[in-house]
């Protein structure tokens, strides 16, 4: 098929937009493994910056993974039951609750963080512990879990499924764990991936809530950008990319039609 000149103009524009997004990523990967970025690749390739990042910041990596998993656990525990009720009872009040729970995402993280500090900052033990950050992350990610599970629950006929199980003598616990949960696997998985990805990358709330002893990965990144040489910041960014890529690939794979049911 012969393409029109307009096709090539639009293609060039699209490639330019993609280059704008990708070139800095490539630059940061290059800078992270170059002896001296200012001199260029000819100064030699090295892993010494990555090693240095590991010695300086490995704690931030473990803390971020820990907080992401704890956030996931909390959002699963409180988010799935909440989504179930919101799906079963669709009335004015539940719509209100849904609207309310999205507020921590609609309002800038800075405001949420300031509010938490002003109310709970005086409780020193809580203020300096990692659970203070966990609270911020749960607030920010809970709406994504609830929405993702709710989308699947609204698409299936929850009530009929439950009634059928109940008529066979299943208790509520049996219905919940053996009928409802297996039926919304897709939504739970999609929500879980979203929660972990968001928690790993959260900065706006975390920056205000962290202490020197509770630095997460994005906080460490900001610290290295501000105070370390460009090569170290770049190497640290590579570490972040390595951690986030598997999550993105999994999300992409899930959202492809045909491989998994459409969600949220």
């Amino acid at each position, binding site marked *: 098929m012969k393409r029109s000149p307009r096709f090539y103009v*639009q293609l060039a524009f699209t490639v330019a937009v*993609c280059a704008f*997004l990708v*070139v*800095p990523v490539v630059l*940061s990967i290059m800078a992270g493994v170059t002896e001296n970025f200012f001199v260029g690749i000819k100064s030699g390739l090295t892993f010494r910056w990555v090693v240095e990042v590991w010695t300086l910041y490995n704690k931030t990596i473990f803390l971020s993974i820990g907080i992401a998993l704890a956030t996931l656990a909390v959002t699963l525990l409180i988010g799935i039951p909440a989504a179930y009720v919101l799906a079963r009872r669709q009335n004015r009040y539940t719509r209100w609750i849904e609207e309310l729970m999205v507020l921590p995402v609609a309002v800038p993280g800075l405001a949420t963080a300031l509010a938490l500090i002003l109310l709970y900052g005086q409780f020193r033990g809580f203020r300096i512990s990692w659970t203070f950050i966990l609270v911020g992350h749960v607030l920010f990610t809970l709406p994504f879990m609830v929405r993702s599970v709710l989308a699947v629950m609204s698409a299936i006929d929850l009530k009929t499924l439950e009634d059928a199980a109940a008529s066979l003598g299943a208790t509520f616990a049996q219905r919940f764990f053996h009928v409802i949960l297996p039926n919304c696997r897709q939504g739970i998985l999609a929500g879980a991936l979203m929660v972990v990805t968001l928690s790993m990358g959260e*900065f706006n709330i975390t*920056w205000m809530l962290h202490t020197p002893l509770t630095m997460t990965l994005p906080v460490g990144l900001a610290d290295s950008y501000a105070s370390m040489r460009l090569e170290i910041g770049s190497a640290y960014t590579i570490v972040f990319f390595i951690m986030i890529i598997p999550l993105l690939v999994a999300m992409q794979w899930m959202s492809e039609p045909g491989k998994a049911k459409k969600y949220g």
Partner: protein
Amino acid sequence: MKPAHRESLRHIALLLPALTIFAAFWLLPMARLLSVGASGEMGISAYWAVVTDPRYFSSLVSTIVLSATVTFATIIIAGITGMFLQRHRFFGRSFLLATLTFPLAFPGVVVGFMVILLVGRQGLVGSVTEWLFDEKLVLAYSMAGLFLGYLYFSIPRVILTIMAAAEKLDGALEEVARSLGASPWQVIRDVMIPGLKPALISSGAICFATSMGAFGTAFTLATKINVLPITIYSEFTNYANFSLAAALSIVLGLITWMALALARSMAGSTVAAAA
């Protein structure tokens, strides 16, 4: 106990954990923020400071102008790119699509760093312009850098929304318009844009709200740029002016919330991830 009654109790019990955490850690702190905002020397009029005090007013105006410009530019860029990728199948298309999805998960700080690598002191554009004209072009640490950073995190989000909406557009309508003699520009103006309108408005509002509240990118690029999140941050940490920081963040929160409420009323369920 009646079964229906028992079910109601069960539903309340299942909703309670989420509601308790939300009330204890968001509603109560927000109420506190609201009251701290009115507790300073200025009292409740601190909420007007953002309009009456020239310093905060200029910060508000520059943030709004920046966010509106970013939104406008993003919609045009993402509109062209999204329609193109949706309508054409060619070698390398899925690679281009993948590069658009990748930056979605970048925190604001990383986006700021990307801008530094592109147009910062040791950036690519600086080296190229130095080689070409013997003069370094450095944009990163100014409004221009902020503009590029906000574009960076907005473009992927808006493109994906536009592509999803474009998938549902009826291509036959454009064919009809063309066969009736409409020019390409008329097809875009009278067929495509009206069809995409809900997606354009909702993704535009999300883009605007995200830019208004974006902190990480501005924080990485320069803490001296006069945008509202940075102003709030420096009032809080550098001047310990808690009441004013509280009042300003309530005002900022109201603006972003209203923009998103507009988006949701136009196009149903969309939640923004703040960058």
